């Protein structure tokens, strides 16, 4: 039964919060149980940010993901070091290889190296690196569908960002293609 526990982490401005929010929204649109919990307060200072997302069939207990993550998406090196060992055996680790030049030390998980920033820049803006990562995640896990994520884009970013949609969707697609 679906009980996906995700950690999204990176430094401030990499869009890790919205990456998690998009999965959450997409899950909600699919009628799944969802929760999203950000790191907050002092933990947010110093430039790193992370959030916990749960997408499940059954009602969610604690919205926290600690040492029981099924997926981790890390956008920078400190996040890899901090969260790599929180993955359960068989979990999936998505590494932003544009900014992280080391390999995972885990051998009991699936690791995906996604050059998220390079791809994002190549299609027009480094800012959508998070969506490249997200596209790869969706293709690799099928926890939520790419269509739901596209719908969620409009919910999370709002109508005012409509002109960004072609770029956003392109970034998602490139991420999908990389894995799928």
């Amino acid at each position, binding site marked *: 039964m679906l009980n996906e526990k995700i950690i999204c982490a990176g430094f401030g401005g990499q869009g890790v919060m919205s990456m998690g*929010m998009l999965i*959450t*929204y997409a899950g*909600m649109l699919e009628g799944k149980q*969802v*929760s*999203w*919990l*950000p790191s*907050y*307060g*002092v933990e947010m200072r110093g430039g790193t940010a992370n959030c916990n997302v749960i997408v499940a069939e*059954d*009602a*969610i*207990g*604690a*919205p*926290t993901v*600690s040492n029981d993550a099924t997926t981790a998406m890390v956008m920078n090196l400190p996040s890899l070091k901090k969260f790599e060992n929180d993955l359960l055996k068989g979990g999936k680790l998505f590494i932003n290889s544009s900014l992280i030049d080391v390999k995972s030390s885990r051998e009991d998980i699936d690791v995906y190296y996604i050059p998220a920033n390079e791809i994002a820049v190549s299609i027009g803006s480094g800012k959508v690196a998070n969506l490249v990562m997200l596209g790869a995640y969706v293709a690799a896990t099928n926890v939520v569908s790419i269509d739901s994520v596209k719908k969620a884009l409009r*919910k999370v970013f709002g109508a005012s960002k409509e002109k960004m949609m072609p770029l956003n969707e392109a970034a998602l697609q490139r991420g999908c293609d990389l894995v799928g």
Partner: protein
Amino acid sequence: MEKVLMKGNEAIGAAAIKAGCRYFFGYPITPQNEVPEYMAKELPKHGGVFLQAESEVAAINMVYGAAGAGARVMTSSSSPGLALKQEGLTYIAACELPCLVVNVVRGGPGLGGIQPAQSDYYQATRGGGNGDYKLIVLAPASLQELTDMVQEAFDLADYYRNPVMVLADGMIGQMMEPVAFGEIPQRTLPEKNWATTGTDGDRVPNVINSLFLAPEELEALNIRLQAKYQTIKANETRCEIYQLEDAEIVFTAYGTTARIVKNAIKVLKAEGIKAGLIRPMTLWPFPEAAYQALPETVKCILSVEMSCGQMVDDVRLAVESKVPVAFYGRSGGMIPTVDDIVAEAKQLLGR
């Protein structure tokens, strides 16, 4: 009804505005800052007033003034801030003024931390200030319940002329979950003919006061308050009873912790251990009766809390020693895990 994904703290603000709250007085403290931030942005659009007070002490006294003047008003804070508001709360309770106070609880004692906790149970349910008084204390376990309770809190407050507290925790405040803003059951609310609005020259002055120097008068106030509290107890006590039938062990937990306990119950069930849950939804009045109607199969009760053992006192009083009551808790922002709870239950049952 459309579901939207909202952060708990923002859902508190949205629900309050939907319930007609137009005045918010508060002071910044983590992890509830999104409540005042939301109100600062949204209240003016609804013709309301948001004011950042110079302290929690001032904020609660502004609430006292506005509630006395007849307005739907609220404040929110987190644990150390709530401690500062206790002075105002006892005045508000004594003067029987309706208002909503939200406490997004963080770990203590002292400055403590900013991670979620349930260690303000005493502070909420004992009437943290001086004298004999009670707040109605609502304890939501999900964001949907949070929005429903915040909306209803204003009606409860007006109906009983009593301050109401919504006791959440840092997790409820910070997390996002789908919520739908539905209609809440309507109550016929009494007119606020006691409010200080100016006499307009056509009535005797209204006075909001809690000073009664004559012992007979002060006792009369207490007798009236206690009678009201009995009515609230009879009418407003709420709890969720979950899988109690044939249970060997009954957990009791509120708020976020109850969600984790439900997952633990599932794990136990898979291992052939029948477990149930009593989840108080009102912490005051406490759902005592639920603990007196336990099935014969129950061998023990386990109170699970994000504290060092506070609600467990009320559980023991309610159980009246009919079955053993045990406690398991984490504190300081640590969150009990399903595995911990399962292990604790098995140990208690000798499995």
